[in-house]
């Protein structure tokens, strides 16, 4: 039905979409999830020909969109836009009848039959009684149903829904999506919907595409893509999954007062020996054959300041140069360091949530302003927190502890100063604590 191949889109040197590819068959429901500004609406606009992709191709029924005119596209593909008031008050029926537009020639207007058919679609969606009501005076839910009726009247082949549940109350949210899903099943309509709630995607979608900064984070069958690690990564929020009536749902851990993982923060000023203490701990654990994961940044100090730094993947032992001090403030990273690509890649590998399993212990040296700004390894942190029974030792400077706790919604994590004489014993105790005690612990 619809195939999207390596679509990229940029505006004024700003890359909004990069290499997005997916396919959709008739009767399938694809949910697009992503944080605000991830490029979801841009992608939808590329799909329906409102934006011209700078690279790649969108094909509809094996015909490239570029070779179709606007009416031809609209005959196959109907968009339910984010609802907004119209400048003038059309009645709900007039709005729905406009779905016929792509099938009419320039000078033609809808016929009596079209009006009759539009009324029938409205009745199917239970909004037949609103036909004469002014669209602008309808409630959000009614408007959304009217727009959905227009889209279904326009095309039953492919529906694009741009945040269809915005402004809707609890009942309407499910009503709209149930109607859409019914079309998938009964009329074999293919649906692409931008959703903000992963649980709605979980309930209705067959396939899910996760979009992060214009790139596909993950795409595939719902069960494969919808994991708490992926959701945590996508929204930068540690998320737990729970079961209701054999269906898995997601909820932020902090909202549930649940923490699946435990965090210990080692703090101390720059050059106070935090990394050295952790290196000693790693060695100790290796002797006891306790596996550790994560990354460590042993550095070279000059004049009491970090001059350059290596990065070590604790699990594999790989080591390479991470960065060195340039003395010039880099506006992008907010630091006076220049980082190597190999070092960043090694760090991302060391903190890749796909390599983490239940009960793993992860060291992050260190969480600084870059991570708090969503750069560096910032995006890796939340999905790691979603790993059940995992334990995390983070290195954080004293002035950032509060911010770090707020950013990752940590409830009173254990904080140990580097000057603590009991540091190594406490670290060992944290690592060897009873795993099971952590699950379901109230924060």
């Amino acid at each position, binding site marked *: 039905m619809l195939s999207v191949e390596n679509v990229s889109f940029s505006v004024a040197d700003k890359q909004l979409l990069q290499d997005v590819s997916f396919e959709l068959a008739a009767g399938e429901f694809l949910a697009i999830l992503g944080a605000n500004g991830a490029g979801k609406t841009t992608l939808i606009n590329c799909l329906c020909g409102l934006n011209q992709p700078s690279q790649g191709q969108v094909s509809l029924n094996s015909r490239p969109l570029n070779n179709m005119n606007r009416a031809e596209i609209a005959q196959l593909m*109907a968009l339910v836009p984010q609802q907004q008031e119209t400048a*003038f008050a*059309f009645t709900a029926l007039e709005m729905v009848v406009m779905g016929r537009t*792509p099938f009419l020639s*320039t000078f033609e207007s*809808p016929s009596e039959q079209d009006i009759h058919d539009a009324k029938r679609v409205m009745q199917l969606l239970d909004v037949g009684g609103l036909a004469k009501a002014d669209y602008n005076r309808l409630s959000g839910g009614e408007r959304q149903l009217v727009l959905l009726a227009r889209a279904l009247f326009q095309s039953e082949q492919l529906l694009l829904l741009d945040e269809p549940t915005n402004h809707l109350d609890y009942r309407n949210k499910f009503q709209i999506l149930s109607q859409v899903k019914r079309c998938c099943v009964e009329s074999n309509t293919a649906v692409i919907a931008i959703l903000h709630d992963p649980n709605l995607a979980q309930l209705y979608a067959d396939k899910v595409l996760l979009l992060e900064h214009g790139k596909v984070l993950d795409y595939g069958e719902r069960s494969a893509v919808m994991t708490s690690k992926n959701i945590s990564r996508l929204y930068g929020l540690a998320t737990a999954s729970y079961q209701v009536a054999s269906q898995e749902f997601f909820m932020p851990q902090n909202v549930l007062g649940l923490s699946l993982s435990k965090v210990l923060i080692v703090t101390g000023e720059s050059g106070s020996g935090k990394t050295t203490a952790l290196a000693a701990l790693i060695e100790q654990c290796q002797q006891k054959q306790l596996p550790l994961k994560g990354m460590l940044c042993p550095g070279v100090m000059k004049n009491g300041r970090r001059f350059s730094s290596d990065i070590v993947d604790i699990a594999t032992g790989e080591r390479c140069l991470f960065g060195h001090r340039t003395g010039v403030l880099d506006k992008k990273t907010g630091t006076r360091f220049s980082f190597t690509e190999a070092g960043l890649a090694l760090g991302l590998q060391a903190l890749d949530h796909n390599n983490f399993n239940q009960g793993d212990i992860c060291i992050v040296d260190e969480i600084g302003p870059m991570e708090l700004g969503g750069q560096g390894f910032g995006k890796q942190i939340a999905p790691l927190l979603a790993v059940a029974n995992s334990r995390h030792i983070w290195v954080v400077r004293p002035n950032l502890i509060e911010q770090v706790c707020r950013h990752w919604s940590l409830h009173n994590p254990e904080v140990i100063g580097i000057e603590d004489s009991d540091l190594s014993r406490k670290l060992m105790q944290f690592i060897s604590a009873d795993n099971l005690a952590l699950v379901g612990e109230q924060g």
Partner: protein
Amino acid sequence: MFIAKGRTFQPVKWLGIAIVVGLVGLCAGRFSINSSDLFSAIQKLPSVLSSLILAGQVPDNLTQEERVILLIRFPRLLTALIVGAGLAVSGAVYQGVFRNPLVSPDILGVASGCMFGAAMGLILPGSSWLMVQLLAFVCGLAAACAAMFMAKRFGSNSLLLMIMTGIIVGSIFGAGLTMLKALADPYGELPAIVFWLMGSLSVSSWSTVAQLIVPVALGYGLIHTLRYRLNVLCLGDHQCRSLGVEPARLRMVLIVISSFIVASCVATVGSVAWIGLVVPHMVRTFTGANNMRLIPLSTAVGAIFLLLADSVARASFSMEIPIGIVTSLVGAPLFAFLLFRFRQGGAY
């Protein structure tokens, strides 16, 4: 027809109203005319028209009353109908295209251009009345084209930008007009310019009707066939495209047609305030926003409104008062009443 029942546009009804108002208008005036004169004059209308068209001269077997009716009041009545219809329909189109009920046909500076052109024609030595009208028409269209061209050159097709460039062009022509007024001979040219600006149908003749009917009828015909597309355009560019209609081209076509109509009307009778802005407003208040009804109804109401206003303008006082004053004085309270009456079910 894409029109809800009970709110249908009934051409016969509106034609009937126009005829009644027209007959009253023909009788009204300083020169009193009774119904038998009117009846005999109307019987002679076909022969007068045919001799005017074929021979280019007036038959000489007419009484004074018949001459007043057939050569003065009748063409004036038709001019009022055509100009009223033209201004109202282009107002409705502009409001739809710009998706703003506060837009008047002058939004792109057409009227300012016309006024400047007319003032220039009045100042230039030896220019005929036809020359004045031609200059007004050309300058009006030039203003609209300049505004659209500027908006396009600024790189965006946004409505706001077009309104901005319309203001720019309008103010340049406005400044030019003031300049011309300052330069004009205060005893001859300046009053002529001022009276032209006030707008008047007193110069109407059969030739006025002939030069107006073609652009207005043609323009209206096109708008009438495109009025369903105008509905789609009212939803905004994004929805318009998703419904398979390319908004930029449609918008351009509609703006060009309505600017053409406005330029023809303003060039012929001067500036007539209020109609283009308020008639579509009034009609929308009681029929809703659907252009399938709004376009024909605005046209009919605009035509009848201006005819009534002109009848009042020439019959109520010993001297003829400028039509713009009447349209505003009659229209404003009427509009206020409608807003009050329909405030529960308004169309905005």
